Protein backbone atom coordinates (compact mmCIF):
# COMPACT_ATOMS: atom_id res chain seq x y z
CA UNK A 1 0.00 0.00 0.00
CA UNK A 2 1.61 3.24 -1.10
CA UNK A 3 0.13 6.51 0.12
CA UNK A 4 1.05 9.28 -2.27
CA UNK A 5 1.11 13.03 -1.77
CA UNK A 6 0.98 15.00 -4.99
CA UNK A 7 1.67 18.73 -4.94
CA UNK A 8 0.01 20.96 -7.55
CA UNK A 9 0.16 24.66 -8.28
CA UNK A 10 -2.61 26.91 -9.52
CA UNK A 11 -1.13 28.87 -12.42
CA UNK A 12 -2.51 31.33 -14.97
CA UNK A 13 -3.56 29.57 -18.18
CA UNK A 14 -1.38 31.36 -20.70
CA UNK A 15 -1.71 29.43 -23.93
CA UNK A 16 -2.65 32.63 -25.77
CA UNK A 17 -0.92 35.69 -24.40
CA UNK A 18 0.81 36.65 -21.16
CA UNK A 19 -0.94 39.62 -19.52
CA UNK A 20 0.71 41.33 -16.54
CA UNK A 21 -0.95 43.20 -13.68
CA UNK A 22 -0.65 47.00 -13.74
CA UNK A 23 2.28 46.97 -11.28
CA UNK A 24 4.13 44.44 -13.44
CA UNK A 25 4.66 42.11 -10.49
CA UNK A 26 2.26 39.30 -11.37
CA UNK A 27 0.76 37.47 -14.31
CA UNK A 28 -2.87 38.48 -14.62
CA UNK A 29 -4.96 35.36 -15.06
CA UNK A 30 -8.35 37.03 -14.63
CA UNK A 31 -9.29 36.78 -18.29
CA UNK A 32 -7.48 33.65 -19.42
CA UNK A 33 -8.34 31.70 -16.25
CA UNK A 34 -6.29 29.34 -14.14
CA UNK A 35 -5.16 25.77 -14.49
CA UNK A 36 -2.77 23.19 -13.03
CA UNK A 37 0.82 23.13 -14.34
CA UNK A 38 1.04 20.46 -17.11
CA UNK A 39 3.78 18.48 -15.37
CA UNK A 40 1.63 18.34 -12.24
CA UNK A 41 -1.38 17.04 -14.16
CA UNK A 42 0.92 14.19 -15.18
CA UNK A 43 2.04 13.83 -11.54
CA UNK A 44 -1.60 13.47 -10.42
CA UNK A 45 -2.21 10.79 -13.06
CA UNK A 46 0.91 8.88 -11.92
CA UNK A 47 -0.10 9.23 -8.25
CA UNK A 48 -3.51 7.72 -9.03
CA UNK A 49 -1.87 4.87 -10.98
CA UNK A 50 0.45 4.04 -8.07
CA UNK A 51 -2.35 4.24 -5.49
CA UNK A 52 -4.62 2.01 -7.56
CA UNK A 53 -1.90 -0.58 -8.15
CA UNK A 54 -1.00 -0.74 -4.44
CA UNK A 55 -4.44 -0.03 -2.91
CA UNK A 56 -3.04 3.15 -1.40
CA UNK A 57 -4.40 6.68 -1.26
CA UNK A 58 -3.66 9.97 -3.00
CA UNK A 59 -3.69 13.33 -1.22
CA UNK A 60 -3.48 16.46 -3.38
CA UNK A 61 -1.72 19.42 -1.77
CA UNK A 62 -1.53 22.97 -2.99
CA UNK A 63 0.20 26.00 -1.50
CA UNK A 64 -1.72 29.09 -2.50
CA UNK A 65 -4.85 31.19 -2.24
CA UNK A 66 -8.21 29.64 -1.24
CA UNK A 67 -8.97 29.49 -4.99
CA UNK A 68 -6.35 26.73 -5.27
CA UNK A 69 -9.03 24.39 -3.91
CA UNK A 70 -10.22 24.26 -7.54
CA UNK A 71 -6.93 22.55 -8.55
CA UNK A 72 -7.10 20.23 -5.53
CA UNK A 73 -10.65 19.17 -6.39
CA UNK A 74 -9.64 18.68 -10.04
CA UNK A 75 -7.16 16.11 -8.71
CA UNK A 76 -9.82 14.38 -6.64
CA UNK A 77 -12.09 14.30 -9.70
CA UNK A 78 -9.55 12.11 -11.51
CA UNK A 79 -9.01 9.70 -8.65
CA UNK A 80 -7.34 11.33 -5.64
CA UNK A 81 -8.73 10.75 -2.16
CA UNK A 82 -8.51 14.03 -0.30
CA UNK A 83 -6.72 17.37 -0.22
CA UNK A 84 -4.62 19.77 1.82
CA UNK A 85 -4.66 23.49 1.14
CA UNK A 86 -1.73 25.40 2.63
CA UNK A 87 -3.15 28.90 2.51
CA UNK A 88 -0.61 31.51 1.44
CA UNK A 89 -0.01 34.26 -1.07
CA UNK A 90 1.91 32.11 -3.53
CA UNK A 91 3.40 35.15 -5.27
CA UNK A 92 5.06 36.19 -2.02
CA UNK A 93 6.81 32.85 -1.58
CA UNK A 94 10.09 31.73 -3.07
CA UNK A 95 10.85 28.09 -3.93
CA UNK A 96 12.57 27.52 -0.57
CA UNK A 97 9.45 28.83 1.23
CA UNK A 98 7.12 26.55 -0.74
CA UNK A 99 9.33 23.56 0.06
CA UNK A 100 9.26 24.48 3.79
CA UNK A 101 5.47 24.84 3.72
CA UNK A 102 5.01 21.43 2.06
CA UNK A 103 7.51 19.80 4.45
CA UNK A 104 5.57 21.15 7.43
CA UNK A 105 2.31 19.68 6.07
CA UNK A 106 4.01 16.32 5.42
CA UNK A 107 5.37 16.22 8.98
CA UNK A 108 1.97 17.16 10.42
CA UNK A 109 0.30 14.29 8.55
CA UNK A 110 3.09 11.98 9.68
CA UNK A 111 2.48 12.99 13.30
CA UNK A 112 -1.20 12.21 12.74
CA UNK A 113 -0.34 8.71 11.46
CA UNK A 114 -0.09 9.06 7.67
CA UNK A 115 3.34 8.67 6.09
CA UNK A 116 3.51 9.51 2.41
CA UNK A 117 5.87 6.92 0.96
CA UNK A 118 5.96 8.90 -2.24
CA UNK A 119 5.72 12.66 -2.69
CA UNK A 120 5.25 13.74 -6.30
CA UNK A 121 5.61 17.27 -7.65
CA UNK A 122 5.92 18.82 -11.08
CA UNK A 123 9.48 19.17 -12.39
CA UNK A 124 8.94 22.93 -12.70
CA UNK A 125 5.97 25.24 -12.32
CA UNK A 126 4.49 26.55 -15.57
CA UNK A 127 4.64 30.14 -14.33
CA UNK A 128 7.71 30.69 -12.10
CA UNK A 129 9.89 27.91 -13.55
CA UNK A 130 12.26 27.67 -10.58
CA UNK A 131 13.07 23.95 -11.04
CA UNK A 132 13.87 23.39 -7.35
CA UNK A 133 10.88 22.98 -4.99
CA UNK A 134 10.94 19.15 -5.14
CA UNK A 135 14.68 18.94 -4.56
CA UNK A 136 14.55 21.37 -1.63
CA UNK A 137 11.62 19.44 -0.13
CA UNK A 138 13.58 16.17 -0.33
CA UNK A 139 16.47 17.66 1.65
CA UNK A 140 14.08 19.01 4.28
CA UNK A 141 12.55 15.55 4.64
CA UNK A 142 15.92 13.77 4.30
CA UNK A 143 14.67 11.64 1.44
CA UNK A 144 16.20 10.69 -1.91
CA UNK A 145 14.86 12.65 -4.88
CA UNK A 146 14.79 12.13 -8.62
CA UNK A 147 13.76 14.88 -11.03
CA UNK A 148 12.16 14.75 -14.47
CA UNK A 149 10.47 11.35 -14.13
CA UNK A 150 7.76 10.13 -16.51
CA UNK A 151 6.67 6.74 -15.17
CA UNK A 152 6.54 5.31 -11.64
CA UNK A 153 5.99 1.71 -10.52
CA UNK A 154 5.94 1.21 -6.76
CA UNK A 155 5.91 -2.04 -4.81
CA UNK A 156 7.30 -3.42 -1.55
CA UNK A 157 8.85 -0.20 -0.39
CA UNK A 158 10.70 0.45 -3.63
CA UNK A 159 9.95 2.38 -6.81
CA UNK A 160 11.15 1.96 -10.38
CA UNK A 161 11.26 5.34 -12.11
CA UNK A 162 11.85 6.20 -15.74
CA UNK A 163 12.74 9.54 -17.30
CA UNK A 164 14.45 10.88 -20.39
CA UNK A 165 18.19 11.52 -20.08
CA UNK A 166 20.67 12.82 -22.63
CA UNK A 167 21.40 9.33 -23.99
CA UNK A 168 18.11 7.55 -23.58
CA UNK A 169 15.62 6.49 -20.96
CA UNK A 170 17.19 6.54 -17.50
CA UNK A 171 15.90 3.95 -15.06
CA UNK A 172 16.10 4.39 -11.29
CA UNK A 173 15.26 1.76 -8.70
CA UNK A 174 15.06 3.54 -5.35
CA UNK A 175 13.99 2.87 -1.82
CA UNK A 176 10.89 4.58 -0.48
CA UNK A 177 10.04 6.99 1.07
CA UNK A 178 11.19 9.32 -1.67
CA UNK A 179 10.40 12.54 -3.50
CA UNK A 180 9.96 12.46 -7.27
CA UNK A 181 9.42 15.35 -9.67
CA UNK A 182 7.43 14.55 -12.77
CA UNK A 183 7.62 15.66 -16.38
CA UNK A 184 4.71 15.13 -18.71
CA UNK A 185 5.00 12.56 -21.47
CA UNK A 186 4.84 9.20 -19.69
CA UNK A 187 1.19 9.16 -18.77
CA UNK A 188 -1.98 10.59 -20.28
CA UNK A 189 -3.85 12.80 -17.81
CA UNK A 190 -7.45 11.63 -17.48
CA UNK A 191 -10.59 13.65 -17.92
CA UNK A 192 -12.83 13.57 -14.85
CA UNK A 193 -15.92 11.35 -15.00
CA UNK A 194 -19.30 12.54 -13.74
CA UNK A 195 -18.93 10.43 -10.59
CA UNK A 196 -15.42 11.82 -10.19
CA UNK A 197 -16.74 15.37 -10.28
CA UNK A 198 -19.42 14.47 -7.73
CA UNK A 199 -16.81 12.91 -5.45
CA UNK A 200 -14.58 15.95 -5.82
CA UNK A 201 -17.30 18.25 -4.52
CA UNK A 202 -17.65 16.25 -1.32
CA UNK A 203 -14.03 15.24 -0.72
CA UNK A 204 -12.42 16.57 2.46
CA UNK A 205 -9.89 19.36 1.94
CA UNK A 206 -7.99 20.31 5.07
CA UNK A 207 -7.03 23.98 5.19
CA UNK A 208 -3.82 24.72 7.07
CA UNK A 209 -1.45 27.64 7.35
CA UNK A 210 2.32 27.59 7.25
CA UNK A 211 4.02 28.71 10.46
CA UNK A 212 7.22 29.88 8.78
CA UNK A 213 8.33 33.28 7.57
CA UNK A 214 8.69 33.77 3.83
CA UNK A 215 12.12 34.60 2.45
CA UNK A 216 10.45 35.57 -0.82
CA UNK A 217 11.36 35.01 -4.43
CA UNK A 218 13.55 38.07 -4.99
CA UNK A 219 11.26 39.22 -7.78
CA UNK A 220 11.76 42.83 -8.80
CA UNK A 221 9.35 42.80 -11.73
CA UNK A 222 8.06 40.97 -14.78
CA UNK A 223 8.13 41.91 -18.43
CA UNK A 224 6.90 40.41 -21.65
CA UNK A 225 9.47 40.60 -24.44
CA UNK A 226 8.26 42.39 -27.54
CA UNK A 227 7.44 39.96 -30.34
CA UNK A 228 9.84 40.30 -33.26
CA UNK A 229 8.49 42.56 -35.99
CA UNK A 230 6.65 40.63 -38.68
CA UNK A 231 8.94 40.33 -41.67
CA UNK A 232 7.72 37.07 -43.10
CA UNK A 233 8.43 36.46 -46.77
CA UNK A 234 5.62 34.40 -48.25
CA UNK A 235 7.18 32.04 -50.79
CA UNK A 236 3.88 31.05 -52.34
CA UNK A 237 0.88 28.80 -51.94
CA UNK A 238 0.57 25.03 -52.01
CA UNK A 239 2.83 22.66 -53.92
CA UNK A 240 3.66 25.40 -56.43
CA UNK A 241 5.83 27.02 -53.77
CA UNK A 242 8.13 23.99 -53.54
CA UNK A 243 10.85 25.32 -55.90
CA UNK A 244 11.02 28.60 -53.97
CA UNK A 245 11.22 26.73 -50.66
CA UNK A 246 13.99 24.46 -51.94
CA UNK A 247 15.74 27.59 -53.21
CA UNK A 248 15.80 28.92 -49.64
CA UNK A 249 17.05 25.57 -48.32
CA UNK A 250 19.96 25.64 -50.78
CA UNK A 251 20.70 29.26 -49.95
CA UNK A 252 20.89 28.29 -46.26
CA UNK A 253 23.21 25.41 -47.25
CA UNK A 254 21.15 22.82 -45.41
CA UNK A 255 20.75 20.42 -48.34
CA UNK A 256 23.44 17.71 -48.22
CA UNK A 257 25.09 17.33 -51.61
Amino acid at each position, binding site marked *: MTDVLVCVKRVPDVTGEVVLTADGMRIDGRYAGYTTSPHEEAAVALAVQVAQATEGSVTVLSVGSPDSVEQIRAGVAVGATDGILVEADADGLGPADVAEAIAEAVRAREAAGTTYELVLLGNDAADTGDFQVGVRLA*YLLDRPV*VAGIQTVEASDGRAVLRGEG*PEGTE*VYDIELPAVVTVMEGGVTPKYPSVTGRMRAKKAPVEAVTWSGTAAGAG*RLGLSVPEPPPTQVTVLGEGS*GAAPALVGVLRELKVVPE
Partner: protein
Amino acid sequence: MSVVVLVEVEEGRASLVSREALTFARSLGAGDLHAVVVGAAPAELVEDCREAGVAVVHEASDPTLERYAAAAWAAVVEAAGRAARADLVVAPGTGRGNEVLAHVAARRRLQLAANVVEVESLAPLVVQRQVVGGAALERAEVTSRVRLMTMAGHAVEPEPAGQPGEARVSALPVTIDPKDLRAQVARVEVREEGDTSGLSSARVVVGAGRGAGGPDGFADVDALAERLGAAVGVSRVVTSLGWRPHHEQVGQTGSRIAPELYLACGISGSIQHWAGCASSRTIIAVNTDAEAPMVTKADYAVIGDMHEVLPAVLAELG
Protein backbone atom coordinates in the same frame (compact mmCIF):
# COMPACT_ATOMS: atom_id res chain seq x y z
CA MET B 1 36.91 35.96 -7.11
CA SER B 2 36.15 33.22 -9.59
CA VAL B 3 33.33 31.51 -11.45
CA VAL B 4 32.77 27.78 -11.71
CA VAL B 5 30.82 26.42 -14.68
CA LEU B 6 29.40 22.89 -14.74
CA VAL B 7 30.33 21.45 -18.14
CA GLU B 8 28.38 18.52 -19.54
CA VAL B 9 29.99 16.06 -21.93
CA GLU B 10 28.40 15.31 -25.29
CA GLU B 11 30.19 13.03 -27.71
CA GLY B 12 33.55 13.79 -26.10
CA ARG B 13 33.12 17.56 -26.26
CA ALA B 14 31.64 20.23 -24.05
CA SER B 15 27.93 20.20 -24.95
CA LEU B 16 26.59 23.14 -26.95
CA VAL B 17 24.68 24.58 -23.97
CA SER B 18 27.78 24.13 -21.78
CA ARG B 19 29.86 26.11 -24.27
CA GLU B 20 27.14 28.77 -24.23
CA ALA B 21 27.31 28.80 -20.42
CA LEU B 22 31.11 29.23 -20.55
CA THR B 23 30.76 32.18 -22.94
CA PHE B 24 28.07 33.67 -20.73
CA ALA B 25 30.06 33.20 -17.52
CA ARG B 26 33.21 34.68 -19.08
CA SER B 27 31.29 37.76 -20.25
CA LEU B 28 30.35 38.57 -16.64
CA GLY B 29 33.93 39.52 -15.84
CA ALA B 30 33.57 37.96 -12.43
CA GLY B 31 37.12 36.63 -12.09
CA ASP B 32 38.92 33.46 -13.19
CA LEU B 33 36.86 31.00 -15.17
CA HIS B 34 36.87 27.41 -13.87
CA ALA B 35 35.12 24.41 -15.37
CA VAL B 36 34.01 21.29 -13.51
CA VAL B 37 33.45 17.98 -15.27
CA VAL B 38 32.07 14.80 -13.75
CA GLY B 39 34.23 11.92 -14.96
CA ALA B 40 37.56 12.16 -16.76
CA ALA B 41 37.71 15.24 -19.01
CA PRO B 42 38.12 14.18 -22.66
CA ALA B 43 40.87 15.95 -24.62
CA GLU B 44 38.46 17.70 -26.98
CA LEU B 45 36.44 19.01 -24.05
CA VAL B 46 39.62 20.42 -22.47
CA GLU B 47 40.33 22.09 -25.83
CA ASP B 48 36.79 23.57 -25.84
CA CYS B 49 37.49 24.92 -22.35
CA ARG B 50 40.84 26.37 -23.38
CA GLU B 51 39.20 28.14 -26.29
CA ALA B 52 36.51 29.49 -23.97
CA GLY B 53 39.14 31.01 -21.69
CA VAL B 54 38.99 28.49 -18.84
CA ALA B 55 41.90 28.64 -16.39
CA VAL B 56 41.35 25.31 -14.63
CA VAL B 57 39.32 22.23 -15.58
CA HIS B 58 38.38 20.33 -12.40
CA GLU B 59 37.69 16.69 -13.13
CA ALA B 60 36.13 14.32 -10.62
CA SER B 61 36.67 10.75 -11.68
CA ASP B 62 35.49 8.79 -8.63
CA PRO B 63 34.25 5.39 -9.91
CA THR B 64 30.95 5.85 -8.05
CA LEU B 65 30.19 8.73 -10.42
CA GLU B 66 30.01 6.57 -13.54
CA ARG B 67 26.23 6.47 -13.35
CA TYR B 68 24.40 9.79 -12.91
CA ALA B 69 23.27 10.75 -9.42
CA ALA B 70 22.25 14.39 -9.03
CA ALA B 71 23.19 14.62 -5.34
CA ALA B 72 26.67 13.20 -6.02
CA TRP B 73 27.15 15.62 -8.91
CA ALA B 74 26.14 18.41 -6.55
CA ALA B 75 28.86 17.25 -4.13
CA VAL B 76 31.36 17.53 -7.00
CA VAL B 77 30.19 21.03 -7.89
CA GLU B 78 30.50 22.03 -4.22
CA ALA B 79 34.04 20.63 -4.11
CA ALA B 80 34.99 22.53 -7.27
CA GLY B 81 33.48 25.68 -5.80
CA ARG B 82 35.68 25.28 -2.73
CA ALA B 83 38.80 24.48 -4.79
CA ALA B 84 38.25 27.54 -6.97
CA ARG B 85 37.11 29.74 -4.07
CA ALA B 86 34.16 30.60 -6.29
CA ASP B 87 31.40 32.96 -5.33
CA LEU B 88 29.45 32.34 -8.52
CA VAL B 89 28.43 28.97 -9.95
CA VAL B 90 26.84 28.63 -13.39
CA ALA B 91 25.33 25.55 -15.02
CA PRO B 92 23.66 25.06 -18.37
CA GLY B 93 19.86 25.30 -18.10
CA THR B 94 19.43 21.66 -19.09
CA GLY B 95 17.61 18.94 -17.16
CA ARG B 96 20.90 17.97 -15.50
CA GLY B 97 22.11 21.54 -14.95
CA ASN B 98 18.91 22.70 -13.28
CA GLU B 99 18.65 19.53 -11.19
CA VAL B 100 22.26 19.57 -9.95
CA LEU B 101 22.23 23.25 -8.99
CA ALA B 102 18.89 22.76 -7.22
CA HIS B 103 20.71 20.16 -5.10
CA VAL B 104 23.60 22.53 -4.42
CA ALA B 105 21.09 25.24 -3.47
CA ALA B 106 19.22 22.92 -1.10
CA ARG B 107 22.41 21.55 0.50
CA ARG B 108 23.97 24.94 1.06
CA ARG B 109 20.71 26.84 1.68
CA LEU B 110 21.45 29.21 -1.18
CA GLN B 111 19.20 30.89 -3.69
CA LEU B 112 19.21 29.63 -7.27
CA ALA B 113 18.15 31.68 -10.26
CA ALA B 114 17.11 29.27 -13.02
CA ASN B 115 17.22 30.00 -16.75
CA VAL B 116 18.97 33.35 -16.61
CA VAL B 117 19.28 35.22 -19.92
CA GLU B 118 21.04 38.35 -18.72
CA VAL B 119 22.96 39.63 -15.71
CA GLU B 120 22.24 43.29 -14.96
CA SER B 121 24.63 43.63 -12.04
CA LEU B 122 26.93 41.30 -10.13
CA ALA B 123 26.83 42.94 -6.69
CA PRO B 124 24.04 42.72 -5.82
CA LEU B 125 23.29 40.03 -8.37
CA VAL B 126 20.32 41.16 -10.45
CA VAL B 127 19.28 38.95 -13.33
CA GLN B 128 16.68 38.62 -16.02
CA ARG B 129 15.41 35.06 -16.15
CA GLN B 130 12.90 33.20 -18.24
CA VAL B 131 9.54 32.42 -16.66
CA VAL B 132 6.38 31.01 -18.23
CA GLY B 133 8.63 28.91 -20.46
CA GLY B 134 10.30 31.98 -21.90
CA ALA B 135 7.08 33.88 -22.70
CA ALA B 136 7.93 36.37 -19.95
CA LEU B 137 11.04 37.57 -18.12
CA GLU B 138 11.47 38.04 -14.40
CA ARG B 139 13.89 40.60 -13.02
CA ALA B 140 15.14 39.03 -9.82
CA GLU B 141 17.70 39.69 -7.12
CA VAL B 142 19.88 36.97 -5.62
CA THR B 143 21.22 37.95 -2.20
CA SER B 144 23.06 34.74 -1.20
CA ARG B 145 26.79 35.14 -0.63
CA VAL B 146 27.51 32.38 -3.13
CA ARG B 147 25.34 32.94 -6.16
CA LEU B 148 23.95 30.08 -8.21
CA MET B 149 22.40 30.36 -11.62
CA THR B 150 21.58 28.24 -14.61
CA MET B 151 21.75 29.84 -18.03
CA ALA B 152 18.79 29.47 -20.36
CA GLY B 153 19.73 27.38 -23.38
CA HIS B 154 20.64 29.41 -26.45
CA ALA B 155 20.51 32.82 -24.70
CA VAL B 156 24.00 33.46 -26.11
CA GLU B 157 26.09 31.85 -28.83
CA PRO B 158 29.35 30.16 -27.88
CA GLU B 159 32.30 32.36 -28.78
CA PRO B 160 36.02 31.79 -28.24
CA ALA B 161 37.73 34.03 -25.70
CA GLY B 162 40.01 36.81 -26.99
CA GLN B 163 42.79 35.08 -25.07
CA PRO B 164 42.61 31.28 -24.72
CA GLY B 165 42.77 29.96 -21.16
CA GLU B 166 45.39 27.69 -19.64
CA ALA B 167 42.78 24.93 -19.18
CA ARG B 168 44.97 23.14 -16.67
CA VAL B 169 43.37 19.82 -15.76
CA SER B 170 43.17 19.34 -12.01
CA ALA B 171 41.97 16.16 -10.33
CA LEU B 172 39.29 17.07 -7.82
CA PRO B 173 39.48 14.96 -4.67
CA VAL B 174 35.93 14.08 -3.67
CA THR B 175 34.54 11.49 -1.34
CA ILE B 176 30.99 10.63 -2.23
CA ASP B 177 28.68 10.06 0.73
CA PRO B 178 26.64 6.87 0.15
CA LYS B 179 23.59 8.98 1.01
CA ASP B 180 24.19 10.95 -2.19
CA LEU B 181 23.88 7.72 -4.19
CA ARG B 182 20.42 6.80 -2.88
CA ALA B 183 18.97 8.04 -6.15
CA GLN B 184 21.33 6.94 -8.90
CA VAL B 185 20.60 5.84 -12.45
CA ALA B 186 20.50 2.03 -12.43
CA ARG B 187 20.65 1.68 -16.21
CA VAL B 188 20.08 3.61 -19.42
CA GLU B 189 17.85 2.23 -22.15
CA VAL B 190 19.63 3.71 -25.17
CA ARG B 191 17.34 4.99 -27.88
CA GLU B 192 17.18 3.33 -31.26
CA GLU B 193 19.30 4.67 -34.11
CA GLY B 194 17.44 7.41 -35.98
CA ASP B 195 15.76 8.77 -32.89
CA THR B 196 16.09 12.48 -32.40
CA SER B 197 18.01 12.41 -29.14
CA GLY B 198 20.10 15.33 -30.37
CA LEU B 199 17.12 17.59 -30.96
CA SER B 200 18.38 20.46 -28.82
CA SER B 201 21.71 20.60 -30.66
CA ALA B 202 20.45 19.66 -34.15
CA ARG B 203 21.53 21.90 -37.04
CA VAL B 204 18.27 21.41 -38.90
CA VAL B 205 14.89 20.51 -37.41
CA VAL B 206 11.79 19.52 -39.36
CA GLY B 207 8.77 20.13 -37.16
CA ALA B 208 5.19 18.94 -37.40
CA GLY B 209 2.03 19.80 -35.52
CA ARG B 210 -1.68 19.15 -35.61
CA GLY B 211 -1.58 19.66 -39.38
CA ALA B 212 -0.02 16.20 -39.69
CA GLY B 213 -3.58 14.99 -39.20
CA GLY B 214 -2.86 11.76 -37.32
CA PRO B 215 -0.20 9.24 -36.30
CA ASP B 216 0.17 8.18 -39.95
CA GLY B 217 0.69 11.74 -41.18
CA PHE B 218 4.45 11.97 -40.59
CA ALA B 219 5.85 10.00 -43.54
CA ASP B 220 6.80 13.12 -45.52
CA VAL B 221 8.17 14.81 -42.40
CA ASP B 222 10.37 11.79 -41.65
CA ALA B 223 11.46 11.55 -45.30
CA LEU B 224 12.37 15.23 -45.47
CA ALA B 225 14.24 15.01 -42.14
CA GLU B 226 16.21 12.09 -43.52
CA ARG B 227 16.92 13.91 -46.79
CA LEU B 228 18.23 16.97 -44.89
CA GLY B 229 19.96 15.01 -42.12
CA ALA B 230 17.61 16.79 -39.73
CA ALA B 231 15.97 15.93 -36.41
CA VAL B 232 12.20 15.71 -36.11
CA GLY B 233 10.51 17.99 -33.59
CA VAL B 234 6.80 18.09 -32.84
CA SER B 235 4.32 20.30 -31.01
CA ARG B 236 2.75 19.42 -27.67
CA VAL B 237 -0.60 18.50 -29.20
CA VAL B 238 1.13 15.82 -31.25
CA THR B 239 2.62 14.13 -28.19
CA SER B 240 -0.53 14.67 -26.10
CA LEU B 241 -2.52 12.82 -28.74
CA GLY B 242 0.05 10.05 -28.71
CA TRP B 243 0.97 10.52 -32.37
CA ARG B 244 4.69 10.83 -31.61
CA PRO B 245 6.90 10.19 -28.54
CA HIS B 246 7.41 12.95 -25.99
CA HIS B 247 11.17 13.17 -26.50
CA GLU B 248 10.49 14.75 -29.88
CA GLN B 249 8.49 17.60 -28.34
CA VAL B 250 9.70 21.15 -28.84
CA GLY B 251 8.50 23.81 -26.41
CA GLN B 252 8.18 24.81 -22.78
CA THR B 253 7.61 21.25 -21.57
CA GLY B 254 9.87 19.68 -24.22
CA SER B 255 13.20 20.54 -25.84
CA ARG B 256 14.60 23.99 -26.56
CA ILE B 257 16.09 24.07 -30.02
CA ALA B 258 18.44 26.50 -31.76
CA PRO B 259 19.05 25.11 -35.26
CA GLU B 260 20.24 26.93 -38.36
CA LEU B 261 16.84 26.09 -39.83
CA TYR B 262 13.53 25.15 -38.29
CA LEU B 263 10.99 24.04 -40.88
CA ALA B 264 7.68 24.07 -38.97
CA CYS B 265 4.91 22.22 -40.78
CA GLY B 266 1.28 22.37 -39.68
CA ILE B 267 2.23 24.04 -36.37
CA SER B 268 0.12 27.03 -35.33
CA GLY B 269 2.75 28.27 -32.86
CA SER B 270 1.44 28.64 -29.29
CA ILE B 271 3.61 30.74 -26.97
CA GLN B 272 4.78 27.53 -25.31
CA HIS B 273 5.98 26.16 -28.65
CA TRP B 274 7.53 29.48 -29.60
CA ALA B 275 9.44 29.46 -26.31
CA GLY B 276 11.16 26.29 -27.47
CA CYS B 277 12.02 27.36 -31.03
CA ALA B 278 12.53 31.13 -30.89
CA SER B 279 16.33 30.73 -30.96
CA SER B 280 16.24 29.12 -34.41
CA ARG B 281 18.31 31.16 -36.84
CA THR B 282 15.83 30.83 -39.71
CA ILE B 283 12.24 29.63 -39.49
CA ILE B 284 10.18 28.47 -42.45
CA ALA B 285 6.51 27.82 -41.70
CA VAL B 286 4.22 25.69 -43.82
CA ASN B 287 0.62 26.24 -42.78
CA THR B 288 -2.87 26.49 -44.27
CA ASP B 289 -3.56 29.54 -42.07
CA ALA B 290 -1.72 32.67 -43.18
CA GLU B 291 -2.59 34.31 -39.84
CA ALA B 292 -1.18 31.53 -37.62
CA PRO B 293 1.44 32.93 -35.18
CA MET B 294 4.03 30.48 -36.53
CA VAL B 295 3.54 31.99 -40.00
CA THR B 296 3.56 35.63 -38.95
CA LYS B 297 6.67 35.14 -36.76
CA ALA B 298 8.56 33.07 -39.37
CA ASP B 299 11.19 34.34 -41.79
CA TYR B 300 9.62 32.48 -44.72
CA ALA B 301 6.23 30.87 -45.17
CA VAL B 302 4.39 28.68 -47.59
CA ILE B 303 0.62 28.88 -47.29
CA GLY B 304 -0.74 25.44 -47.90
CA ASP B 305 -1.37 21.94 -46.62
CA MET B 306 1.88 20.25 -45.52
CA HIS B 307 0.63 17.05 -47.16
CA GLU B 308 0.68 18.82 -50.53
CA VAL B 309 3.75 20.98 -49.99
CA LEU B 310 6.17 18.41 -48.53
CA PRO B 311 5.84 15.79 -51.33
CA ALA B 312 6.49 18.58 -53.85
CA VAL B 313 9.54 19.70 -51.85
CA LEU B 314 10.86 16.12 -51.73
CA ALA B 315 10.35 15.78 -55.48
CA GLU B 316 12.12 19.08 -56.07
CA LEU B 317 15.07 17.98 -53.93
CA GLY B 318 15.30 14.76 -55.93
